[in-house]
C-alpha cells in the first residue's frame, strides 16, 4: 500500500496515560496515541479494549479521570463536545447518531447551517451543500428527505458526510465501515486518503484487517484499556498485530466442516413483500449453513425479517419442519424453533437498559414459567451458563448491557437466542463490530451449532466470511435472488457479479 509522504510530519494530537473509570469499571487505563498531520493511524484492539472510550474522551463526551493531552504541541483539554470541535476534532461515532425528524441536509449542517441575508437559515443553500457533499462521496441521496427510516448503511454514510464537511484537522472514525459493503468502503477510503493528503490527521478504528492494512500508515494496538505498541503498517503483519491485541496467537482460519446436511428444516417458497422483494425460494437443511450475500440494500435483511415475521409477507410461505408459519407473527416463528439475531443490536437485538441476565432470559420467559409464574432461579442459571459459554466480558450478570462494548453486546444477543436452542438460527451480520478473537469464536460457534444439526441462515456483507462459512451462497440483487451458488462455485468473482447484477454472472 502506498505510504503517505507526510507520514513523518509533526505530532498533531498526542494523548498520554488517559484514564477513564465508570464506577468500578476501568474502561481505559492508559490511553495513548500520537497522531501526526497527514497520516492515517489505525487503532486496533479487542472488543472492550477501550477504543470507543478513548474516542469519546477526544470528542469531549466523557471527561477523563487523568491523562495529558496536547494539540499542536500545546496542552489542551476536551471539556465538552463543543470544546473538542473547536479544537478541530471531528468524530464519527461507532453507532450512528442521527436526528430522525430532521432532513438529511440538516443532520449534516445542524448548528452551522448556512444563513441568508436576514440571518435566517438558507434551506435551499443547505440542501445544495449537502448534495455536493454526497457527490463527493459518490452516494446518491436526497438531502431533503427525513432521516427517519434510513438503513444503517445510509445513516453511516450521512455520518461520514457530516464529519468530512467539518474540514477538521483531526478526523476520528470509530468503525465507520462496519455497516458498509465494498463499494462504499472503497469510496470512503478514497475520500479519507484525499483528506490525509490535504494534511488532515485521521484516526481509524476497524476490526477488519484488510481495511486497516489498506488504509493506515501506522497502527496502534490496545489491550485491556492500555496502550501496547505502535507500528508502521509496512513493517508489521496481521498475525503480529493480532498477537499483540489478544496476547496470544489466533487461528483466524475458518473452522473446517464436513457434516452431511440432514433433512430440510427451513423451507421458503415464493416469499414476497410488495415493493421490497419477491420470488424468494430456498431451503436450509439441518446442519447446513446458507449465506445470503449481496450489496447493501439488496433486501437481505428484509427477507430475514419477513421469514421471522417481523414484517408481514405479501405472498409465499415459510415453513419449519413442514409446518407453515403464520405470516407476520414472530411468536409463531419462535414457537416453531426459529431464532433471529438482528443486524441492529442496539435497537433491535437488546434492551439496552436491562441487565445481561434479563436480556439473555427474554427469550426464555415462557420456558421457565410454571403455572404462569416465572422460576427466577432456573432463568438466571440458564442465562449465566450461556453468558459464560460465550465468554461475555462482564463484571456481573446485573450489569446493564448498555455499558458493554459493542462486541460483547453482540455476544449477549447470540447468547439470548442460543439459549432457546433453536432449530433454525437466522443471523444478520453476525460479526459486525466483533474483534478477530471473538470473530473466530463466533465462527467456531456457528460451525459447531451447525455440526449439532442446527440449520443456519447467515446474512453477511463480508465476503471472506460468506465464502469461508457457507455451504451454499444465495446472492441477492434488487430484491431477487440472482444466484444460488454451491460452495464449490462460490468465488469472490461469482458472488460479486451476481450481487452487482452483471448479466454474465446470472446462473
Amino acid at each position: 500500500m502506498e505510504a503517505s509522504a507526510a507520514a513523518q510530519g509533526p505530532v498533531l494530537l498526542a494523548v498520554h496515560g488517559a484514564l477513564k473509570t465508570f464506577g468500578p469499571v476501568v474502561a481505559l487505563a492508559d490511553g495513548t496515541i500520537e497522531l501526526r498531520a497527514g497520516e492515517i493511524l489505525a487503532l486496533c484492539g479487542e472488543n472492550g479494549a477501550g477504543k470507543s472510550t478513548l474516542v469519546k474522551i477526544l470528542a469531549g463526551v466523557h471527561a477523563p479521570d487523568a491523562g495529558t493531552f496536547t494539540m499542536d504541541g500545546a496542552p489542551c483539554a476536551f471539556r465538552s463536545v463543543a470544546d473538542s470541535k473547536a479544537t478541530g476534532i471531528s468524530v464519527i461515532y461507532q453507532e450512528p447518531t442521527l436526528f430522525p425528524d430532521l432532513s438529511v441536509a440538516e443532520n449534516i449542517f445542524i448548528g452551522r447551517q448556512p444563513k441568508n441575508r436576514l440571518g435566517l437559515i438558507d434551506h435551499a443553500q443547505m440542501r445544495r451543500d449537502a448534495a455536493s457533499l454526497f457527490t463527493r462521496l459518490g452516494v446518491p441521496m436526497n438531502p431533503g428527505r427525513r432521516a427517519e427510516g434510513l438503513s444503517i448503511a445510509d445513516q453511516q454514510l450521512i455520518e461520514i458526510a457530516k464529519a468530512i464537511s467539518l474540514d477538521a484537522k483531526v478526523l476520528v472514525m470509530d468503525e465507520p465501515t462496519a455497516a458498509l459493503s465494498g463499494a462504499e468502503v472503497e469510496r470512503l477510503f478514497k475520500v479519507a486518503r484525499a483528506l490525509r493528503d490535504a494534511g488532515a490527521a485521521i484516526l481509524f478504528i476497524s476490526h477488519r484487517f484488510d481495511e486497516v492494512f489498506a488504509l493506515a500508515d501506522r497502527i496502534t494496538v490496545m489491550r485491556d484499556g492500555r496502550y501496547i505498541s505502535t507500528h508502521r503498517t509496512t513493517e508489521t503483519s496481521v498475525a503480529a498485530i493480532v498477537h499483540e491485541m489478544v496476547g496470544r496467537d489466533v487461528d483466524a482460519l475458518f473452522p473446517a466442516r464436513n457434516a452431511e446436511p440432514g433433512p430440510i428444516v427451513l423451507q421458503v417458497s415464493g416469499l414476497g413483500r410488495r415493493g421490497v422483494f419477491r420470488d424468494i425460494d430456498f431451503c436450509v437443511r439441518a446442519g447446513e449453513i446458507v449465506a445470503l450475500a449481496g450489496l447493501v440494500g439488496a433486501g437481505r435483511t428484509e427477507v430475514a425479517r419477513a421469514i421471522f415475521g417481523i414484517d408481514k409477507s405479501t405472498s409465499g410461505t415459510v415453513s419449519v419442519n413442514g409446518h407453515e408459519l403464520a405470516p407476520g407473527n414472530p411468536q409463531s416463528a419462535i414457537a416453531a424453533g426459529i431464532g433471529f439475531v438482528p443486524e441492529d443490536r442496539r435497537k433491535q437485538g437488546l434492551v439496552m437498559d436491562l441487565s445481561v441476565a434479563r436480556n439473555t432470559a427474554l427469550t426464555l420467559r415462557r420456558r421457565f414459567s410454571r403455572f404462569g409464574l416465572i422460576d427466577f432461579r432456573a432463568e438466571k442459571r440458564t442465562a449465566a451458563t450461556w453468558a459464560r459459554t460465550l465468554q461475555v466480558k462482564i463484571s456481573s450478570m446485573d450489569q446493564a448491557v448498555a455499558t458493554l462494548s459493542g462486541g460483547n453486546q453482540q455476544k449477549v444477543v447470540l447468547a439470548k437466542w442460543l439459549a432457546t436452542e433453536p432449530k433454525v438460527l437466522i443471523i444478520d451480520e453476525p460479526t459486525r463490530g466483533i474483534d478477530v478473537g471473538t470473530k473466530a469464536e463466533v465462527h467456531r460457534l456457528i460451525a459447531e451449532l451447525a455440526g449439532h444439526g442446527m440449520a443456519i441462515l447467515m446474512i453477511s456483507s463480508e465476503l471472506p466470511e460468506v465464502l469461508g462459512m457457507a455451504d451454499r451462497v444465495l446472492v441477492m440483487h434488487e430484491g431477487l435472488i440472482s444466484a444460488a451458488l454451491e460452495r464449490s462455485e462460490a468465488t469472490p468473482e461469482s458472488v460479486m457479479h451476481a450481487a452487482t447484477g452483471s448479466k454474465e454472472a446470472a446462473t
Partner: protein
Amino acid sequence: MSTQATQTRPGPSGASRLGALLRLRELPVTVALVALVIVTAAVNPLFLSPQGMKDLMLNATIMMLLAAGQTMVIVTRNIDLSVGSILGLVAFGTGSIFAAVPTMPIWLVLLVGVGFGALLGSLNGLLTVWAKVPSLVITLGTLYVFRGVNNGWAGPRQFFAGDRPEAFGNLSVDTLLGVPIITVLALAVVIVLAVYLAGARSGRDLYAIGSDPEAARLFGINTSTRVFTAFLVNGALAGLAGVLYASRFNAVGATTGSGLELDVVAAAVVGGVAIFGGSGTVIGAAIGAILLNTITSSLTALRVDKFWQQAIVGVLIITAILIDRLASLRHAKHLREREGRNV
C-alpha cells in the same frame, strides 16, 4: 470494486410544491377550522358579526400564547404541565399590583408579569436540566406547588375588573383594524416564535434535541441551555397570558387557570405537534388552539345540546391525531415506494 451500487438507490428527487403543501401537518387542522367557521356562519350569521369575530379571537388569544410556548417545550421532548398554575399566579400577581399601585403603567405590569412567568418557567427548566429528570414529573410537581403557593398567597382574596384601571381592561376591548389589541400582541409573539423555530440555528437545535436527545448530546449541542431556554420562554408566555387573563376576565384569585394544562397540550397536539418531540410548528399549535376554542363557540352558536359539546371536542382531538397519523403513514409508504424496488 464496481460503482454499480450507485444505480441501486434513487437519486435526489425534487418534491413538488403542491406535494409539500399537502404534507404540511398544519393542513388538516386549518381545513377543519375553515370548514367549521363556514358551516357555523351559514347556520348562524351572527357567528361572523364583528362582535362574534372579536369574541372568537379573544377566546383563542390566551390559549394561543400558551400553546405556542408549550410547543417550544414539547419540540424538545419535554412537557410543561404547570402552565395553568403559572398563569394563575401571574394573573393574581397582576391583580395585586394594581390593587397596591393603581397608577402602575401597563407596559411595566406586562413586563413584570412576563418576568414573573419566566422566573417560574426557569424553575421548571432548572430542575429538569440540572437533575436530568423527566419534565412531566417535575412539572406535575410544580403544578401542585405553584397552585399551593397561589392558594396560600391569595387565600379567599380575589381582585375584580373594577379594581384595575380601565385602560388595562380596555386592552382586551379595543381593537386595531377589527382585531383586539391583545390578539395582535399574541399573533406577533406567535410569528416571532415561528420564525425563530424555523429559521434560527438555536431554534433548529430544539428540534434536534427532541428528535434524539442522546445524539444531540454526542453532537455537542448545548442541550441544557436550549431546554432551559424553552422552559423559560414557555414560562414567560404563560406569564404574558396571565396578565392578559387579568385584563380580560373579571376575577383573579386562588384557582385562576386551574385545569388549563391538558387543554394546552391538546391544542398543540391537534395542531400537529408530535408529543414525543422533534416535529411540529408554533403556527400549527396556534391554529389548534383557535380550533379548539372555536369549536366550543360554534357548537353553542349552532345550539348543539351542551351535554354533547365535551364529547364532540374529545372526538375532534382524536380525529386530529388520527388524520396526522394516517398522513404520516401515507407519506412513509410513498417514500418507500419511491425508494423501493419495482418488485
